[in-house]
């Protein structure tokens, strides 16, 4: 295993090195449930570019004719309790505000807002608007 800069095996630091002369460094193997490794994940481009704006269509254009139930699932048009989709997509910023501050999406009634937000929460990779939704969720 290549060592960069440091010569010794697993360089000790203040946490590990006992100051008392003659005692060896402690190696703590840890606990069974603990994780000692965190993987670096790629950053999403939207979060690293401050003035990127994106939109989320509700629903995905491929399913534009379907209605949205209060729990966000797509149902046949006319299903009782369901609302038609939004004619225009929502800006990522508006969705983020509604999700984090509890406000409503612009131009929606309470029923529409609940259905649309639940639809958005259920977005999967491959559906229109998913990348936008993922970038809203990334902790900044």
């Amino acid at each position, binding site marked *: 295993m290549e060592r*960069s*800069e440091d010569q010794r095996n697993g360089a000790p630091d203040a946490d590990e090195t006992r100051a008392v002369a003659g005692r060896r460094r402690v190696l703590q193997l840890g606990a069974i449930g603990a994780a000692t490794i*965190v993987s*670096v994940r*790629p*950053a999403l*481009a*939207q*979060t*690293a*570019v*401050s*003035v*990127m*704006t*994106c*939109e*989320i269509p509700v629903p995905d254009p491929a399913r534009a004719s379907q209605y949205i139930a209060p729990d966000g699932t797509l149902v046949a048009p006319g299903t009782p309790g369901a609302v038609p989709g939004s004619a225009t*997509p929502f*800006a*990522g*910023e*508006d969705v983020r505000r509604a999700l984090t501050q509890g406000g409503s999406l612009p131009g929606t009634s309470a029923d529409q807002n609940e259905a649309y937000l639940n639809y958005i929460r259920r977005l999967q990779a491959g559906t*229109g*608007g*998913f*990348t*936008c939704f993922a970038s809203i969720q990334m902790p*900044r």
Partner: protein
Amino acid sequence: MRHGTALRIGPASFRIASDWRAPIALLDRLYADYPRPEAGFADFTVRLEAKRPWRRWLRPSIHLGGDYMLPDALPLSLAHGLLAAEMGMNLQMALGWRRQLLLHASAVEKDGRALVMTGESGSGKSTLAAMLGERGWRLLGDEFTLLDLDRPGVRGFPRMVSLKNEAIAAMAGEVAGERFGPLLRDTPKGAIRHLVPRRDAIARMDEGALPAVLLYPRFGHAAAVRPLQKSENFMRLTQASTNYVALGERGYAALTRFVDTVPAFGVDYASGAEGLATVERLWAEHGR
């Protein structure tokens, strides 16, 4: 497309093509002092497009295109054409640049050394950079800081500074009107106004600097300074870079070198004046 222009900023050059003349005319005015790419070659193309030919005039709406693009991009109104062009250039860099490691950070230079400030929108990194740029520092960049891969160094990439909301008024008092782009209201991020860097920053764009101090500013909090541990700094910077993973081992070497040699501090501040004073103090202690 019938209108276009080309410009170079530091190591990167762009061609911007547009179905409308107005955004191009604005770019030509604001970037007038910038060099043009050599022999018509550009690293990236950005396109401001009408979705249908008649949408050039009827409810004009700009669809952003380019060599690199993200899905779900929001179309913009013609009034926000300058914003579209700037976003387009940001996206080309974020998705396509490989010659330096990109950090989502602003940077300013003094005496050959760079102060780098990283954070998300609202942190104040752009406003601080703009203010420092008017107080004896040279602007190296606003949206992106370019770290050399094979040796320590920051490149110049002085695009226009993107000022938002309250920062616009703060800078308007300090800077002559012709250095500003139009006031863009009602963008998804609120009001935005672009500020052209000082002549000196543009003329010296090919002069880099050695990174000396890294700050994580947070505007709107009670004054506090906190040194960051190298491991925390490293993790946060991997998330502040769009090309760290794509750069592989060279990205790893550049970032570990940066984190190992450049001290980092979180800086909370409640006012511009407080932020500036803290920055100057930290620079005096660690930057020289």
